[in-house]
C-alpha cells in the first residue's frame, strides 16, 4: 500500500515531468501529441473531479439543512439557485440565442442573475479599497511613508483634477506637467522595473520548485510520512 501512496506517485511525477519538459524542445508531432494528450488527461481528470466537488458541495449543505445548523438558511439558498441552473443549463444550454430565436432560460439566468451578481461583487472592491486605504495607509516607517506619498501622487495624477492642477502649474512656469508627467514617469520607470524584478524572481522560483517536485525532493503534497 505504501508503494502506491509514496513511490508510485513519485515515479509518475518524474516520468511525466521529464517527458513534458523535453517535449517543449521536440517539435516532432509525436512529441506534441504527448503534450496534447497530457493536457487532455488533465482536462478529463479536472472535469471528472468536478463530480467529487459537486457531491461535496451538495452533501455539505444537505448536512447543514438536515441538522438545522447555524446559517442553514444560506444552504437552502444554495439549493434554490443551484438546482434550476443545473436543470435549465443541461436542458436548454446557456448559449446566446441566434437571430430569430428566443433566449434559453439558462442563458437568461446567466445574463440577468450571474453576470450582474459578478459585477456587483467586483464593485465591492471600490468600498473595500476605501476602508483598506483608511485603515492601512499609515506613515509608520520610512518605507510606509514613501509608499503613502507615491500612492497619493499617482491617485491625483490618474484623475482629471490632477490634469487640471498640472496645467495650471505648467502655465505658471513649471517646465513639466507635474502630476500628468510625474505619474507617467512613476508608471513607466520605477514601477515597471520593480514589476519586472518580481516577475523574474517568480519565474525562477517556479522553475526551481518544479525541479524539486520532479526529482522528488519536495514531497509535501503527498502528505507527511516519508
Amino acid at each position: 500500500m505504501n508503494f502506491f501512496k509514496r513511490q508510485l506517485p513519485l515515479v509518475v511525477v518524474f516520468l511525466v515531468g521529464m517527458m513534458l519538459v523535453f517535449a517543449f524542445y521536440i517539435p516532432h508531432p509525436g512529441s506534441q501529441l504527448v503534450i496534447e494528450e497530457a493536457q487532455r488527461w488533465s482536462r478529463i481528470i479536472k472535469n471528472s473531479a468536478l463530480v467529487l466537488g459537486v457531491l461535496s458541495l451538495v452533501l455539505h449543505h444537505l448536512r447543514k439543512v438536515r441538522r438545522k445548523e447555524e446559517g442553514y438558511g444560506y444552504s437552502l439558498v444554495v439549493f434554490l439557485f443551484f438546482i434550476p441552473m443545473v436543470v435549465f443549463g443541461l436542458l436548454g444550454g446557456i448559449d446566446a440565442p441566434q437571430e430569430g430565436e428566443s433566449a434559453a432560460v439558462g442563458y437568461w439566468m446567466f445574463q440577468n442573475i450571474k453576470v450582474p451578481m459578478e459585477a456587483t461583487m467586483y464593485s465591492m472592491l471600490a468600498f473595500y479599497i476605501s476602508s483598506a486605504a483608511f485603515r492601512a495607509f499609515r506613515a509608520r516607517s520610512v518605507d510606509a511613508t514613501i509608499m503613502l506619498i507615491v500612492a497619493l501622487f499617482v491617485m491625483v495624477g490618474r484623475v482629471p483634477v490632477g490634469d487640471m492642477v498640472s496645467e495650471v502649474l505648467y502655465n505658471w512656469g513649471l517646465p513639466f506637467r507635474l502630476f500628468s508627467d510625474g505619474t507617467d514617469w512613476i508608471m513607466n520607470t520605477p514601477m515597471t522595473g520593480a514589476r519586472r524584478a518580481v516577475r523574474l524572481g517568480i519565474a525562477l522560483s517556479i522553475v526551481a520548485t518544479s525541479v524539486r517536485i520532479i526529482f522528488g525532493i519536495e514531497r509535501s503534497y503527498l502528505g507527511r510520512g516519508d
Partner: protein
Amino acid sequence: MSFWEKVLKLDRRWIFLVVAIVVAIPIIHPLGLPVAITPDVRGVYDAIENLPEGSPILVSLDYEPGSTPECDPMAEALLTHCFRKNLRVTGMTVIPVGVGTGENILALVSQKMGKKRGEDYTFLGFKAEQSASIVSIGISLQNTFRTDRYGNDTSTLPVLDGVRKLEDFAYLAVVHDDATLDNWVIYGQQVTGVKVGSLCTAVMAPGSYPFKNAKQITGIVGGLKGGSEYEKLLGIRAAASLGMDSQAVIHMFLIVIMILGNIAYLKTRKV
C-alpha cells in the same frame, strides 16, 4: 476618547456610506471634468486612425462578465472608432466566458453603427489553449477557425477577404482583464510582427508597460480613465467619461481620508 481617537476607530460602514454617495452624485449630476490625453492612449488611437479604410483589424475580447463595467466602455469606444473608419472588424476571444461578453458588445456597437455581419464584422468565437491557438492563428486563421460563430465559412467571408493569418491583420487590439496580453505579444506580435494595442482594466495596466517600453505594443488604454481619453479623442461622451467624474471624486475622497487617518495616527501615537 479624543476626536482623533474617534477618527481612528471610525466604523468602516460610515466610509462605505460616503463612498456610495460620492460615487452616485456625479452620475446623477455629471461634473464634466476635463480629461487630458496621455501618450499611452494616443498610441492606440493614432495606430487605428492611421489605418487605411477597409483595413482588417482583429479585436480579441478577453474579459469576464465581472469586468464589463470597466472593459465595455473601452471596447465600445474602440469598436466605434473602427466602424467609423470603416475597418473590417474580426472579433474573437481566448477565454471561455469571453464569448458572451465579446459577442454582446460587438453586436451592440455594430447595430448602433449600422454595420452588417459578415461584410463589416464577424465574431469567430473561442478557441481553447491560449498560446497554441495564437500560434495557430499566426500560421493560418482559416485552419484555426473554419467557421465563424454563426456557422459561416471563414475562407469565403467578405470581412476576411485577403486575411489568411495573423500578420495579414493591420492591427490587433486586445481588450483584457487578465494576462492574455502576454500570450498575444509572445506568440503573436513577436512571431508575426503584427501591431498590438492593449485595452485593459486599471489593475492590469501596470503589466502592459514593460511591453510598451519595449515597443512591442503601440499603446495602452488603461481603465476607465483610458476609456474616457479614448472617448474624448472620438469626440463623444459615453460611459467611461461619465464614470470618470465619479472616479475623480472618489479619488479625492480617498486622499482626504488617507490624510485624515494619518493625522489621527500621528496625533494619537504615543512618543
